[in-house]
């Protein structure tokens, strides 16, 4: 994958001849290389212009007006979204959430993040593109990413020096593992599996080599806390990975960084180089004989499903990011079939703190079943969007108050795959006992239409399904189509019950968490915000999905007409 990316960065796209050449170079069947290239949104096997502008299309970007801005940009460039300009200069399209929800609307220009888009920036950007000014010469201010840390606790306030956590304990892998187990640390990527047990299972699995993998794919819309950790506390994260390596006996680690965070690649590499120079990575770390460990950064290429740990491992191996069959689990057969620990960025950062300060200290923070702190990525209708670090157990209402939210209608906790919390539930707590979260916290005030929120999420899942299994590949698209049908005013009660039926197939038969959770936002909003759906239903029992007037849209476009007479009489 890194070869594909570097080649594309140099040549602009991956032509059939380029793919043949790469396949020869790596000794893979050509079709397998083409299959990998075709899987990821950020690889193109067709020329897409020397400038490629991708608008982040999370619901938070939409709330900040990204659609109008994108239309304006397209008008200025004489373009249609998704199409390359006639002269091959530029294309403009949408992409899944780029993790900049606290400073949207955001775009990626040739895979470099630009945030806080507004009409002036759109106009200037269009001029720069038309004048063919290289992206490297664009105003540096545009590429400045804010951290927006609003509340810091043990992780974000950490001021340890690199290496401190590694030196803190007696040099004994078992002792380190015991501290992690004692701390009660649970995974921060969503599932909440006990980190100590995972590490122990990996250490005990038969195998001559072991791997430590840090999951920095952060694809869940509305989540951006790993980005801030990797910006502010990269050393702590790498230190946590090194602690894990020591505990399980691994010699090699990978950080899987989502393609949207391409701009972090060089800074992270330089942190790694500094650590190598300081003897904190490489051979005989801290002078301990045989404690060899090094870390490489692997850049993803736009595929949410690669956050799923086994898909992530496939992707690390250069393949299509498809979740594996389990068992076996990664702790026994992971990267290259070897025992592998996969943890979230925040989990590793916490592990480093625990190694330094002890499991008992950590256990004293948070609640009984949820030790420690949790980073929340707060976005949407709040006065102060950004990162909030709280001890576990904080209520939704407290977070809303701190972030300056008023007239709040709902909060989507943990992203589209999480839960939609209505105002009568704001007393509930962020903790594994109550509402677990991977970190997203998207706030919607009373002016927002919760149907459109759910529709945005349905589009997200349909776009991101890997396509491996039937229920998710076809089912997420059926759900999206049903939401579009309802949204366009052609829906009926029958379509709502259809949503329930398809959802049950997904929940029962899908292969991985993506398919299992894809129906959540729909089911949650139908239950809690039913009027938002019913307002849109026609009173009929059945309405054909085929829209006669809609079918004339192409003809209207070709003739440049959109007046009343160009529409069917009966269309509202």
């Amino acid at each position, binding site marked *: 994958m890194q070869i594909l990316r570097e080649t594309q960065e140099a040549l602009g796209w991956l032509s059939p001849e380029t793919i043949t050449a790469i396949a020869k170079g790596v000794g893979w069947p050509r079709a397998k290389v083409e299959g990998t290239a075709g899987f990821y949104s950020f690889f193109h096997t067709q020329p897409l212009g020397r400038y490629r502008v991708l608008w982040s299309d999370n619901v938070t970007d939409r709330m900040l007006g990204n659609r109008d801005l994108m239309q304006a940009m397209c008008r200025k460039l004489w373009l249609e979204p998704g199409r390359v300009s006639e002269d091959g200069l530029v294309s403009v399209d949408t992409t899944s959430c780029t993790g900049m929800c606290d400073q949207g609307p955001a775009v990626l220009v040739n895979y470099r993040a630009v945030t806080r888009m507004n009409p002036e920036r759109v106009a200037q950007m269009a001029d720069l593109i038309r004048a063919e000014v290289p992206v490297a010469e664009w105003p540096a201010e545009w590429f400045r990413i804010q951290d927006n840390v609003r509340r810091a606790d043990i992780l974000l306030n950490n001021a340890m020096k690199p290496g401190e956590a590694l030196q803190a304990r007696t040099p004994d892998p078992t002792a380190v593992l015991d501290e992690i187990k004692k701390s009660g640390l649970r995974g921060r990527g969503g599932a909440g599996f006990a980190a100590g047990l995972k590490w122990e299972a990996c250490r005990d699995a038969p195998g001559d080599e072991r791997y430590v993998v840090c999951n920095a794919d952060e694809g869940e819309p509305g989540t951006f806390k790993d980005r801030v950790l990797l910006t502010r506390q990269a050393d702590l994260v790498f230190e946590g990975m090194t602690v894990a390596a020591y505990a399980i006996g691994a010699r090699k680690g990978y950080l899987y960084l989502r393609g949207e965070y391409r701009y972090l690649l060089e800074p992270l590499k330089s942190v790694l180089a500094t650590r190598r120079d300081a003897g904190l990575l490489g051979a005989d770390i801290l002078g301990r004989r045989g404690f060899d460990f090094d870390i490489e950064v692997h850049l993803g290429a736009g595929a949410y499903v690669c956050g799923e740990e086994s898909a992530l491992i496939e992707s690390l191996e250069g393949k299509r990011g498809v979740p594996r069959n389990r068992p076996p689990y990664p702790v026994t057969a992971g990267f290259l079939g070897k025992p592998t620990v996969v943890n979230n960025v925040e989990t590793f950062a916490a592990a480093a703190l625990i190694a330094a300060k002890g499991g008992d200290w950590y256990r004293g923070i948070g609640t009984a079943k949820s030790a420690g702190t949790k980073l929340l990525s707060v976005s949407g209708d709040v006065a102060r969007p950004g990162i909030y670090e709280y001890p576990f157990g904080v209520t939704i209402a407290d977070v809303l108050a701190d972030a300056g939210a008023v007239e709040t209608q709902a909060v989507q906790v943990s992203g589209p795959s999480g839960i939609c919390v209505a105002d009568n539930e704001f007393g509930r707590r962020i903790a594994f006992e109550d509402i677990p979260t991977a970190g997203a916290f998207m706030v919607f005030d009373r002016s927002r239409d919760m149907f459109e929120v759910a529709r945005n999420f349905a589009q997200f899942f349909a776009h991101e399904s890997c396509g491996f299994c039937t229920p998710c590949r076809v089912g997420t698209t*059926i759900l999206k189509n049903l939401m579009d049908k309802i949204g366009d005013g052609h829906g009926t009660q029958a379509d709502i019950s259809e949503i329930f039926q398809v959802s049950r197939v997904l929940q029962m038969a899908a292969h991985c968490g993506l398919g299992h959770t894809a129906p959540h936002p729909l089911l949650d909003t139908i239950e809690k915000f039913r009027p938002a759906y019913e307002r849109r239903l026609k009173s009929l029992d059945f309405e054909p999905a085929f829209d006669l007037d809609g079918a004339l849209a192409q003809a209207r476009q070709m003739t440049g007409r959109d007046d009343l007479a160009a529409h069917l009489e009966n269309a509202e």
Partner: protein
Amino acid sequence: MSGTFTLDGREIPFEPGQTVMQAALAAGVFVPHLCYHPEFRPHGSCKLCTMKVNGRPATSCTLPAATGMEVESDTAEINDKRRMLIQMLLVEGNHFCPSCEKSGNCKLQALGYALGVMTPHFTHFFPDRPVDASHPDMLLDFNRCILCELCIRASAEVDQKNVFALSGRGMKKHLIVNAESGRLADTDFAPTDKAAEVCPVGVILRKRRGFAVPIGKRTYDLKPITEQVERFMPVTPATKEKVR
């Protein structure tokens, strides 16, 4: 480890390393499936074989059997879901059985009948998928591809050729062939390949061999697929002959 588990109340023995589905088939219990093939490692993508194991959904073709499991398969709830999966596959591609050379030998069609699929139910996607007729002896009609990857596995594992692979993601996932031109004629595919005979539906077809066996006399015309479980039994020395 060998032992037994119960399947719909019936005691099923299993041998070491067997999956729930292999054990069920070996015991003569039919299990709906499309991506499973007795001669290949299980794949777990079509999800037709979904069962409930100790009350929780599981993919039976990839789940190792274990002693004491309580497994449900042939229940109204589960068959309902299987029916819907078939319907999903029918609308995802372009399946016009009456004009398909595979009709009567097609597993998708046979399972549709077996599970009582009366209509495709969902709105058709009508995807635009081309036909590849470039090869002198073989035809690829992608309209009917259900993405079970059997041809991919056969070409890689048995033929050692890697003629087929997948590209795209989600709804855009599609079968590709191993050639810069994208044409089957420019690969080393041969009609004698294992990959030429494994397709459960009507994608990979031999040219000039149409309708050799008349419709009405074909495999699943004669007997429903559910009564032909011996065709799918795991390949062990004892069962090998039965599976041609």
